[in-house]
């Protein structure tokens, strides 16, 4: 056990480096995510945000370093984590219904060879109702809107009844109503003591949505409570040089003052 990463942290990343085709995407990442936070992971395109999540979940090989879930490697802690991948990562033309997809969240507990039964269907339906689309349970997934598809993914994570939620851009390209529903859901998870990690793109909503923040651009620029981390200086360090993003940053900075005052 490393003293700088005590086991009470739901996620502790030590010295993590990830490279694709020998080109590093993440450099020496050091992170501690405190329990019960709603953490946003923010940074420009290509900053390695999704890669960070995937490396922690052993989906891509780490060049060096480790990620610990409550002090233990991920493969010992799978039951504690629910993962919501990016919506575009799957083929929504696949011949399954919304309920079928959500029921996939129960497969791990079900184990090999067993088919889903009444209990699993009930759990899946409850989760769909929780995200507000219970009436679409039997729809084929291609007949759902983007926002509804994202809600299906969230419901699949809810069914897993995890402690830590890894979400890869749940707000990307969804309608305003879905965005609101998702953030309320995340906040209610948070209120029940769950830890939520969320890759996020929209700087304008950062200070409203997240109480903890990781600013990432290949390395960790800053990490800590949003009120301390979401500063002009840190944003310039994260987004600096990316001229097309300056407008975004300027807009976000206006909001810093607006939301940080109690």
């Amino acid at each position, binding site marked *: 056990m490393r003293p700088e990463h005590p086991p009470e942290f739901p996620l502790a990343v030590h010295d993590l480096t990830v490279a694709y085709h020998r080109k590093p995407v993440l450099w020496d990442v050091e992170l501690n995510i405190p329990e019960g936070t709603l953490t946003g992971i923010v940074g420009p395109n290509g900053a390695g945000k999704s890669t960070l999540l*995937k490396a922690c979940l052993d989906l891509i090989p780490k060049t060096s370093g480790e990620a610990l879930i409550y002090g233990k490697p991920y493969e010992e802690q799978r039951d504690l984590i629910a993962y919501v991948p990016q919506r575009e990562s799957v083929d929504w033309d696949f011949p*399954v219904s919304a309920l079928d997809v959500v029921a996939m969240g129960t497969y791990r507990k079900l184990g090999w060879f067993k088919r889903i039964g009444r209990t699993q269907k009930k759990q899946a339906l409850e989760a769909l109702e929780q995200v507000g689309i219970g009436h679409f349970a039997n729809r084929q997934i291609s007949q759902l809107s983007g926002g509804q598809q994202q809600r299906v993914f969230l419901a699949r994570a809810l069914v897993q009844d995890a402690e830590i939620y890894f979400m890869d851009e749940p707000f990307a390209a969804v309608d305003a109503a879905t965005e609101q529903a998702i953030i309320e859901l995340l906040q209610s998870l948070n209120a029940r003591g769950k830890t939520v990690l969320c890759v996020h793109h929209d700087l304008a909503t950062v200070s409203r949505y997240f109480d903890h923040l990781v600013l990432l651009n290949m390395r960790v620029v800053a990490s800590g409570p949003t009120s301390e981390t979401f500063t002009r200086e840190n944003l310039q360090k994260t987004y600096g040089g990316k001229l097309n993003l300056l407008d975004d940053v300027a807009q976000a900075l206006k909001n810093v003052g607006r939301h940080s005052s109690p």
Partner: protein
Amino acid sequence: MTWELLRDTLFLEYHNTRLVVLGVAALGATAGLVGSFLLLRKQSLLGDALSHATLPGIGIAFAVMTAMGFSGKSLPGLLLGATVTGLLGVLLVLVIRRTTRLKDDAAMGIVLSVFFGLGVAILKMVEKIPGVSAAGLDSFIQGSTALMTESDAILIAVVLAVTTIVTILILKELTLLCFDANFAATQGWPVLALDITLMALVTAVTVVGLQAVGLILVIALLITPPTAARFWTNRLGPMLFLSAIIGAISGWLGASISALYSNLPAGAIIVITAAVIFLISMIFGTTRGVLPRYLRHLQLQKKVGRQHLLRATYEILENSQETAPLKNLPIAMGLLRKHRFWAKGELSKVIRQARAEDHIERRPSGELRLSESGFGEASRITRNHRLWELYLITHADIAPSHVDRDADMVEHLLGAEIVHQLEAELDLSKPTIESPHAIEPT
């Protein structure tokens, strides 16, 4: 050749063809089942590379068995050889994919053609071995049921039975793998092992299918049935079932016909049968077929035209009467023509439809009058239209002068449930609603 002969073969009346026909039908069913997952995993091309890479193995196995003094044409030996080089081909694709930046299709194209070329060369060489006859080996390229013996059919049946049982056993796991492999991995499912199992199942079907269908066409037997089945359903279970049935029918017909005409290659007939079923499915498939989709589109258009007519009539009645309640009076055609834009011939067409549906009647004077049911329908449609307009104005911030066009398209899709929601949202439940904008004739 008579019809009786064909019929008797199809219905398995002859002992010497019965096993072969049954065996190939079973092959088709298993191929349809396993092929569905190959398709959903988007690895069809890998299956093609696999089947082409079996050819060198067949030639090498023949040479080795002959050299060891056995019969060079023992089916188990030949299929073992086919399996070895087939898997070698797949492995090579995976290695190229891993170590270079070549795209998948390039890697598979290279492996497929190189192995096939190698196979053709090896077959030519073993033909030159003195004292043995390699005749018939090339039937593995195009497929032939003529040389299939009873013991061959039994071997094939056993392999197919095992393949089917394994596939059904891990249906849930394969589905998860094909839909979302990353999610499966985070859940602790051994994605690599599942992928290898799927490949092993595909290999088993391919290898036992070589003799009957031939290595060039076996991929079609794996891919055509599931793509055809997809046109009929949106659910995986029915799709798998249908795909297996389509595969079985293709195999059954193909093997029967080629058993009668020994010069017709079985593989070609099987694949042609499957293709015909595919074509029928593509046109008539109830879920995604071209024709049902076109009919649904026509139906919607018809509904839209009818609703436009009824609403136009209702609005004319409203404009011409000062006092409520609205009376259902006859109106002149000319008024309707002026009230909104109709494409050439559209107005008389929708009037004909509305008359057929008893929504509108023509008076002897030439004027039009809504029937009782048409009047009710017109008032409902107009109300929905205005509900939607009000919703757009209050909630979507669209200017009153623009809502008419937006509402025009959406109103036809409003179901009872949405109408209730709109009423609740707008706090409106009175039976008639005034238009939020002036209605002027165009």
